[in-house]
């Protein structure tokens, strides 16, 4: 049961008619004014409803399980039940913090990655192809590593390799405006380069409005004739759905 309003979002993400993200990397970017967390919620819901054997490994750095559980329940997906069915793996990294000295922090990320890999390997053979790995805040990874972008990049690259090794989908959220004034924003640049699908959420240039919560830009890199496919539309977030529409088409 898909909501009619979300069709535009699905269509632009390339999720209509049983397509999915497996084997691809989706990067979601947002700003202080416009959070794009709803895109993650939408993809989560879509993943669980699209395929009976799909599973999600969720690396939570910014919010608790109960937060996501309540939100997804309103959309129509019971995360607690999925967790009990071993389809939703919630890795709580809220307090993830590596000590400041030497090599130890690298081992920290290695441990997280090992955990992801063992989770995938433990899945039945059929389910292994339908795994989604989701990170709800890349910027917090850098904080956990005391600002070392190299370690974060290593970790993200490792996660990215899973898309080709096991055919997983990799979905990650980052904040665009953090890096605007940095000399060498290597994390965001490299991630944008790797991304197969890039989703950018921005506020309207005219400021906040009740009926339009912001605009989404979706870039899909196609390895064919046309290099990049761009969709641009407005959205309004509701408790149980996302309403998407082209500028000026909403009555």
């Amino acid at each position, binding site marked *: 049961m898909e909501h009619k309003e979300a069709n535009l979002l699905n269509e632009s993400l390339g999720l209509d008619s049983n397509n999915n993200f497996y084997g691809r990397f989706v990067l979601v970017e947002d700003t202080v004014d416009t959070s794009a967390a709803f895109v993650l919620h939408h993809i989560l819901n879509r993943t669980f409803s699209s395929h009976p054997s799909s599973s999600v490994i969720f690396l939570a750095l910014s919010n608790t399980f109960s937060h996501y559980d309540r939100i997804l329940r309103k959309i129509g997906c019971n995360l607690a039940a999925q967790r009990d069915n071993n389809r939703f793996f919630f890795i709580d990294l809220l307090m993830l913090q590596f000590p400041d000295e030497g090599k130890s922090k690298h081992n920290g990320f290695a441990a997280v990655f090992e955990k992801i890999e063992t989770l995938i390997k433990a899945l039945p053979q059929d389910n292994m192809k339908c795994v989604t790995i989701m990170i709800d805040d890349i910027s917090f990874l850098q904080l956990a590593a005391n600002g070392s972008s190299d370690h974060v990049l290593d970790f993200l690259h490792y996660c990215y390799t899973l898309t080709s090794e096991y055919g997983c989908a990799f979905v990650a959220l980052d904040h665009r405006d953090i890096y605007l004034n*940095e000399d060498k924003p290597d994390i965001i640049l490299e991630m944008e380069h790797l991304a197969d699908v890039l989703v950018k959420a921005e506020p309207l240039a005219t400021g906040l409005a009740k009926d339009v919560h912001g605009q989404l830009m979706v870039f899909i890199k196609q390895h064919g004739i046309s290099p990049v496919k761009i969709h641009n539309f407005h959205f309004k977030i509701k408790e149980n759905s996302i309403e998407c529409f082209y500028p000026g088409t909403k009555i």
Partner: protein
Amino acid sequence: MAATRSGVSSFSRSVSTGTSRNPGVKHGPNGTTFISSGIPDLDKILGGGYSLGSLVMIMEDAEAPHHMLLLRNFMSQGLLHKQPLLYATSASTDPKGFLGTLPAPASPKEDKTRHLTNEKDLRIAWQYKKYFGDPQLSINSNYGAHHDYCNDFDLRKPLERHFYSGKNADCVSIQDSPNLTSLQDQCAGFLSQFSRNEANISSAGRIAIQSFCSPQCKYANMEWHMLSFIRSLKAMTRSSNAVVVVTFPPSLLSPSCSKRLQHMADTLLSVRAIPDEDKEMARLLTGYQDMVGLLNVHKVARLNTQVPVILEATTFSIKLQKRRYLVLECLNQAPVDGSSGSSYNTSGSCSGSTKAGSLDF
């Protein structure tokens, strides 16, 4: 019909028991619980107050101490409700002394006269009613109703000593500490009292951190350390019945660091001083003489929901009524041309945001 009736009654019952058992907390939507910010108008603007488990960040103005108004009322309100408080400051080495400057609740008699004057103002201005906007009117009408939950504070009357002399208030100075590890341990210890296991909320905690990241601290150049501290503080707060209010000077931080802090905040506010003799602004806004500053609401906490809170207006004027009471009002542009009320609000915040540009918001 019976089903709908029982549905309604069970909803109202849970709300009423929550408020009657503990006057300091109030149930909100999506399973959240509010505690008062100590400013009735701000509670109204935020939809009830600060939600428990949230991190509130206030961006300071380098030129004026308006953030202290918010911080003081927040602390006073907590002490009045006997909610434990942890106060950390990097601005002075005598944090205990600061408690002596907290405002006391206004006495009922004074309050009454205040209501009368309010009504008089309204009667005079009835023809301009549409320019006032709804929030302001409803704020005024609701003063009496929520007195248990939120008090009016008289900024010129110090809080009585017995409220903060007990074990309820902990004070720390972080000016001389080389890093934030000890403060983090203290916060962890404090927050562990309020871990969110029991169904009913017996007590709520408040942590107030003043001028975090100010340059006189020894750790001021360790940006990653400060960011990690705030992050772990946020993570700890999420699972406890407490609210953390942190004020910080964004102009003294690197832009990316300040943006990261803003992303971490659940509720993000900023205060700004207004220049004394800005004739252009004075012509534009009514009541300019009484304003002491402007409050901007950038983000309102949205725990357990994905829907953002969109306010009618995001810029409010901070006024001191009779030099005693803190009042927040929508900006009212002087009625010069005949456009609708809502455009006033937006133009008000537009002029606000151009000002903000120089301050790196």
